[in-house]
């Protein structure tokens, strides 16, 4: 009661318009409603690119500089940047593109966000309503194209609808299991007058409705866990998106159960803690993968039993009874059968579970775990003047004291960045886990830097992936975004080469980039960024230290690493998790 009163008073003080209540109405054109509604949603930044049908919006933006618009150099970079912003801040990311090719360029970014459950609202221009379906200039059925990769989408035909649609879209993007929402804006709608009710809350249709009471399932889970002798917590991206890392820690600390995280869950549990086993899965640690096969009760939290985690699914964690906490009912029993499903928000469920479980007797279990850790640690050789790629990651971890936001592309460097950077904070590890999008890293890092000014942001990318979106250097220079781009340059599409070495008889088909790679230092300088090259450990150390001092522009560090290093441990495709191959000594 009392808190209601306070918030009402605050709102009244904040702005007069709120005193006018739900009937307060503005007569604006569609473009103005769009910008006003974004300001009312407290949007800090829009990553966009203009074009024919959205010029009306850009005209309104010109007159409203209080809404920061970041001009990207390709619409794919726009959606990735909005995605990186959302992952780093926990807020909804916003991207804007014109119709046709502008809209289709956003597709990879939308699919990336969809696979990793990231809240985005993407606005696309559309040809005038009367011309839709006529194969007009720059027309694409973007609603149709993106239907399988959005949570929901809207074609707004009248500006009267726009305000409510935007409110609903922000709600849907963030509610339940988050995801991208697309709003298609025909040109004529943007120019015609409509009514915008800033204070009206539309009746949100929920894609997310908790239908059952979880308390019974929670007691069953607690009873099961209480009997465990070899418990294991397997935490995924849902702990990050549900902001439940503290609740996870409390469960882990009270029970004493060891914790492994997925690629998406890195940072949800501090890796410096003795209960941490690090990452599991295809390139997970030996201890984590053995533990998942040997545990007797597995508690999956906000994770989806992805094929990169389960290996051969028939032999996944065969000795365990499984508890699965997830906000998305469709994730339950999708890949792996579980005994106790709990559907709901991890943030509310974990404390209830923690309250009901006792401290577990796990000394025997930890003896086994310590044995695995001691006999099969993550390891590599660093000697002489060349740079082991793993050493590069460790050095970045050390020099940033584990406090940077690390953003990656996809491939070997991504796996090493997952293994060798020590993540102790949540939302400090940003990677395209589900879709595996090369070219994601650098633009997503820009978005993270925009959302978290003052924190060091390091994009760890490969020489292949960086070239897919390197044009965003212009954006970062233009907007003075201080991102460090650490290129792990081995002259190969490293993960492709690794698979070709191991499974395709060393036939390196189309994976050798060395001869055709550009001079990345000159490339950086051509854009007005700082470029540095490091070929020895000492040069690398100095370059990273220098780069960390820069706060007004991007820095590209071209780090030449040992060329034919492989990522281990590795669960070979089709194998069970415990059949993983460790680093050859």
């Amino acid at each position, binding site marked *: 009661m009392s808190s209601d009163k306070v918030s009402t008073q605050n709102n009244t003080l904040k702005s007069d318009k709120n005193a006018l209540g739900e009937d307060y109405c503005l007569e604006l054109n569609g473009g103005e409603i769009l910008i006003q509604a974004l300001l009312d949603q407290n949007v800090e930044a829009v990553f966009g690119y203009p074009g024919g049908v959205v010029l009306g919006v850009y005209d309104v933006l010109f007159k409203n500089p209080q809404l920061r618009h970041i001009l990207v150099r390709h619409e794919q970079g726009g959606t990735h940047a909005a995605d990186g912003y959302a992952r780093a801040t926990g807020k909804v990311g916003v991207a804007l593109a014109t119709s046709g090719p502008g809209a289709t360029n956003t597709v990879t970014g939308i699919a990336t966000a969809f696979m990793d459950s990231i809240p985005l609202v993407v606005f696309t221009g559309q040809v005038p309503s009367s011309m839709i379906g006529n194969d007009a200039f720059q027309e694409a059925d973007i609603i*149709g194209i993106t239907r399988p990769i959005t949570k929901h989408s809207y074609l707004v035909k009248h500006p009267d609808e726009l305000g409510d649609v935007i409110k609903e879209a922000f709600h849907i993007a963030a509610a339940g*299991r988050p995801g991208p929402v697309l709003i298609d804006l025909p040109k004529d709608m943007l120019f015609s007058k409509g009514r915008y009710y800033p204070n009206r809350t539309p009746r949100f*249709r*929920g*894609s997310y409705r908790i239908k059952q009471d979880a308390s019974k399932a929670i007691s069953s889970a607690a009873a099961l866990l209480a009997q465990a002798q070899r418990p294991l917590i397997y935490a995924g991206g849902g702990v990050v998106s549900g902001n439940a890392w503290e609740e996870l820690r409390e469960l882990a600390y009270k029970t004493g159960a060891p914790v492994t995280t997925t690629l998406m869950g890195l940072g949800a549990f501090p890796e410096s803690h003795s209960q941490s086993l690090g990452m599991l899965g295809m390139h997970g640690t030996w201890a984590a993968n053995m533990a998942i096969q040997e545990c007797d009760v597995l508690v999956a939290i906000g994770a989806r039993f992805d094929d990169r985690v389960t290996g051969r699914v028939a032999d996944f964690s065969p000795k365990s009874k499984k508890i699965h906490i997830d906000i998305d*009912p469709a994730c339950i*029993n999708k890949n792996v059968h579980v005994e106790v499903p709990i559907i709901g928000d991890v943030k509310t469920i974990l404390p209830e579970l923690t309250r009901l479980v006792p401290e577990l007797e796990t000394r025997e279990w930890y003896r086994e775990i310590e044995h695995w850790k001691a006999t099969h640690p993550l390891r590599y050789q660093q000697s002489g003047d060349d740079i082991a790629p793993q050493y590069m990651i460790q050095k970045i971890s050390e020099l940033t004291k584990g406090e940077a936001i690390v953003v990656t592309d996809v491939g070997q460097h991504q796996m090493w960045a997952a293994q060798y950077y020590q993540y102790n904070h949540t939302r400090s590890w940003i990677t395209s886990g589900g879709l595996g999008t090369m070219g994601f890293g650098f633009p997503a890092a820009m978005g993270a830097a925009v959302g978290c000014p003052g924190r060091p942001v390091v994009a760890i990318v490969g020489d292949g992936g960086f070239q897919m979106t390197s044009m965003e250097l212009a954006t970062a220079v233009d907007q003075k975004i201080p991102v460090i781009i650490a290129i792990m340059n081995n002259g190969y599409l490293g993960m492709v080469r690794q698979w070709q070495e191991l499974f395709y008889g060393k036939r390196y088909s189309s994976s050798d980039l060395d001869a055709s790679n550009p001079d990345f230092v000159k490339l950086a300088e051509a854009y007005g960024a700082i470029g540095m090259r490091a070929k020895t450990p000492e040069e690398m150390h100095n370059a990273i230290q220098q780069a960390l001092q820069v706060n007004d522009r991007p820095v590209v560090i071209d780090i030449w690493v040992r060329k034919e290093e492989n990522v281990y441990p590795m669960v070979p495709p089709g194998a069970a998790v415990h059949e993983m191959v460790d680093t050859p000594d």
Partner: protein
Amino acid sequence: MTDPEIPSAESSHILTIKVSNSFNALARIAGLFSGRGFNIDSISIGESERPETASCTITTHGDTRIVEQITRQLDKLVDIEEVSDLTNEPHVSRELALIKVAAPPETRSEIMQIANIFRSNIVDISPATLTIEITGNRNKVDACIGMLRPFGLKEVARTGMIAMPREYQGSV
């Protein structure tokens, strides 16, 4: 999946869906089935008791896990208000078919007798054809089409099943 606890036998299921009355909603439903590799045996959709809402009936098949996935994935769509699996509940289901069959004078009366047995209506006649309208559950429609096939089917159009739960579920 080799888990013994999950029955793997495939069976037919009848799903009824309350969904907002828009083309985009129908496209999302159909796209979900094609995109995730689910089966649609029949689909029918039309306005419900409220003009802003459509009622959609889908018949599909798969094992328990697949059908559970289908209903849960459907349930996530923002446009969908409610999904029910009527398969194991008392329900009424009907399908309508129009069957144009070759009917020269020498077989015409025999065809009319068959139509009569199925309590179907003859809705069009020409010197060489009869068009029969039949309503019933899918088995009845299948049986009727099967009986008429030897006479020469010219054209068949079926609505797909529509279904709703029975209101009085106790014993009489």
